[in-house]
């Protein structure tokens, strides 16, 4: 049945493309009524009309000014639809399209599809409370406020006036008997439904009401179709994807394969210069549009991901176009990492042991005062990070965030102590990705082992104790969000394997396996006396916990410790 599907086309730019598409519809036997925006200059318009003069089934309707979000679009659609219904009595379905819509499937398939569903109206139509589509906070209020100012040209007045109405509590009355619905402005209605809307005795009331509604082209037909249609299928036959601001995504040449696999009849919006797309989809049916396996989900995924990237971004990434304000990072760093305080002081081979026990990359003191101690003695790290302490200290946060970002997929572990640069402490304490384990006071072990004058040792011990105290206060602050474990040294050496096991379990990967081997603890005989000596000199080391002189002698008596843990 030819001529059963009529196309109403709203056109405002890229007229040459519109002409191509109109010819394509007409060639398949679909009558076309085109509305050209009144903003298009007269000469351009006349040339466009003349270019289509050879097609008897392409007509033009009265022109209206179509500014986005205003009544003009509805008025244009009404008059073009009226023209369509009057001029082509055979038309059963009217398809509303734009100049940048492109048929993706042979037109005959659309005609057959609609012929098989002669009473169905395809129009996306949902009540405002049911859908979260709307952007900018205006959903319900579209129908109850007034919008005399242009959103595009006069945003300030638009916003002020909305605010004023909210404050005053102004509400428009919705005409009796209608329930506002919204949906895609691209629909396909049956002659019965469309003519019922256009010939409604109450139409002037509705028109008057909707002419002041915000973006009426998304609600006028969507609402009124509910009044008359016997069979609404609430979806649009036009594939149209919207970004986070509610404007349509544009399709380019590189979307060709994607569009081929969509099972939609029509897609918008097509970039006017997308040569390959127009060429591929507007050629004769036999050769082109080879039907490939439809996979419409892929389009959804790609565009959903684009919105996600624009609104949420990639966690832990700081770059030229993503610089989140504090607490808006949605992930201070990009992945979990572990910080060890005091472990490499207490255990002689801790770093090697940790490397063997886990899959993680184990570094030395990344914040060491002289240089960045990358694992394996490297002097450059992933992403070409320098080992210069000056570069690191220039922005410690950027340094650590970069390191974690550059090594995505591999867990990083590093040692941290009071002798290191301390500027990073708040950053890691507040980062939920950080697993921080501290044996407080273990920094005294290297001092204890050192061959230095006691006065120097005493001075340094006092300094380190002060720094570590501050670090522990940071970790205990209510703002700390890291996974934090703190033991005093005395506590820890009582039963070292249990805490080690739980840390390793949390790091994961090779977990599920019991630790077969313990790291080798430094020989602590005489350590209690060492602490006592510090005390005797007036420096009270308190972070280590209780090391009594008696116990001090008893611990080494047990040596050598068992190298294997027996469970």
């Amino acid at each position, binding site marked *: 049945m030819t001529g059963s599907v009529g196309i109403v086309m709203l056109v405002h730019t890229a007229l040459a493309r519109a002409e191509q598409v109109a010819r394509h519809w007409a060639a398949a036997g679909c009558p076309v009524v085109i509305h050209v925006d009144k903003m298009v200059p007269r000469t351009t318009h006349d040339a466009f009309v003349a270019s289509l003069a050879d097609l008897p089934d392409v007509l033009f309707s009265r022109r209206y000014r179509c500014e986005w979000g205003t009544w003009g679009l509805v008025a244009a659609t009404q008059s073009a639809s009226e023209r369509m219904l009057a001029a082509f009595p055979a038309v059963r379905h009217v398809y509303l399209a734009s100049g940048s819509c492109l048929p993706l499937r042979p037109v005959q398939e659309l005609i057959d599809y609609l012929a098989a569903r002669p009473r169905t109206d395809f129009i996306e139509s949902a009540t405002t409370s049911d859908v979260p589509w709307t952007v900018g906070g205006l959903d319900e209020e579209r129908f109850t406020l007034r919008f005399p100012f242009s959103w595009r040209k006069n945003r300030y007045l638009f916003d002020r006036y909305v605010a004023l109405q909210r404050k005053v509590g102004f509400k428009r009355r919705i005409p009796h008997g209608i329930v506002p619905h919204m949906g895609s402005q691209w629909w396909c209605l049956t002659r019965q439904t469309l003519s019922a809307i256009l010939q409604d005795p109450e139409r002037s009331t509705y028109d008057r009401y909707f002419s002041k509604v915000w973006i009426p082209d998304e609600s006028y037909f969507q609402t009124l179709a509910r009044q008359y249609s016997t069979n609404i299928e609430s979806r649009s036959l036009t594939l149209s994807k919207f*970004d986070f601001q509610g404007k349509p995504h*544009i399709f380019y040449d590189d979307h060709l394969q994607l569009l081929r696999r969509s099972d939609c009849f029509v897609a918008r919006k097509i970039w006017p210069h997308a040569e390959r797309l127009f060429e591929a989809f507007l050629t004769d049916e036999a050769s082109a549009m080879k039907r490939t396996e439809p996979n419409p989900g892929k389009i959804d995924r790609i565009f959903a991901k684009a919105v996600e990237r624009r609104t949420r971004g990639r966690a832990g990434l700081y770059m*030229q*176009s993503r610089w989140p304000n504090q607490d808006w990072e949605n992930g201070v760093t990009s992945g979990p990492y572990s910080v060890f305080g005091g472990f490499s002081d207490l255990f002689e081979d801790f770093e090697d042991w940790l490397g063997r026990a886990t899959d993680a990359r184990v570094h030395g003191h990344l914040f060491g005062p002289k240089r960045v101690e990358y694992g394996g003695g490297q002097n450059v790290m992933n992403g*070409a990070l320098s080992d210069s302490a000056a570069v690191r200290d220039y922005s410690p946060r950027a340094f650590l965030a970069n390191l974690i970002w550059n090594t995505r997929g591999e867990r990083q572990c590093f040692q941290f102590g009071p002798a290191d640069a301390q500027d990073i402490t708040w950053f890691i304490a507040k980062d939920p990705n950080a697993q921080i384990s501290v044996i407080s006071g273990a920094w005294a072990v290297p001092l204890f082992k050192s061959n230095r004058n006691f006065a120097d040792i005493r001075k340094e011990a006092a300094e380190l104790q002060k720094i570590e105290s501050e670090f522990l206060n940071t970790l205990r602050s209510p703002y700390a969000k890291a996974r934090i474990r703190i033991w005093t040294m005395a506590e820890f050496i009582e039963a070292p394997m249990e805490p080690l096991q739980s840390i390793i379990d949390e790091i994961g990967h090779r977990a599920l396996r019991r630790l077969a081997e313990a790291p080798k603890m430094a020989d602590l005989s005489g350590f209690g006396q060492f602490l006592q000596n510090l005390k005797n000199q007036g420096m009270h080391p308190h972070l280590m916990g209780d090391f009594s002189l008696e116990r001090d002698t008893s611990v080494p008596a047990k040596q050598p410790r068992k190298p294997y843990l027996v469970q």
Partner: protein
Amino acid sequence: MGFWRTYRLRLQRKRWLIRAFRKRRELKAIVNRTAAIKPGDILLFCTQRNEHVRHPYFLKYYRDMGVNHFLIVDNDSTDGSLDYLADQPDVSVWHTKASYKRSRFGVDWLNWLQRKYGHGHWTLVVDPDEFLIYPFSDTRPLRALTDWLDASSIKSFSAMLLDMYPKGRIDEQPYRAGQDPLEIASWFDAGNYVIERNTRYGNLWIQGGPRQRMFFADAPEKAPALNKIPLVKWDRKYTYVSSTHMLLPRGLNLVYDEWGGEKASGVLLHTKFLDTFAIKAAEELNRKQHYAASVEYKAYAESLKDNPDLWCKWSEKYINWRQLEILGLMSKGNWA
């Protein structure tokens, strides 16, 4: 931001515009084909000195991308580049012998040309050794990007400078005219960039890369700025403040998202480090016409004596824009 600060920035913007207006006399038009510029054309503005060997590829690269007209200021070249440029059908070229430094490193000259010819156009300001990469740049022309920016009401587009370098000594592989410089300088630093926000102008300040790693390891704060906003829908009221690092009015500098999302951005591949660099560095050091008393060039000269190999084990080899996107150096934002 208080009224007072807004007002001061406004005054400053006016000052740069007046300065550009004064500096216009330093420019002598050699060939002015700007009458051929059509509404909606994409324009490229550039200052250059003795870059003749780079011109053939540079022009081809941006012609293929969809730039319609080139407006170039030649700062007293002696290598014949002026004649070459004057012969190109889509190039307008001005000549000046005036001081590069006193034109604020060419900014004044280009501000003037942009004000005069760029109003209402998308304008791209790049050096002859900078090559713009944007999302989908391998499949979509520049006009696709600018149309999308227009549709999204975005007026400025960020493209950070990414220093490219060869593997091995910088002077090992000679660069021939017409050659793609990325064939030689195909490596870059992927993840050692440091960002601060400039509260005065609202722009981000990015440092890092091989220059900080090699030349400024002891004084990282002196490393050159890498943030750039080269693509702007120009209005005669706009002005670049310092190179293309930042603009006034300051709203144009807000090319980044502050609430966790990513805006679309590109990268300027900076192919400075070719065999031509050593000669250039020596010359620039003598001329003392560069930023901050040419501190950058002093540092280069110092390091170049020894072993000019910027490559390291963790250097990344350039493949395409998708690679840069995955590495987090640029973003598609919500362009799909």
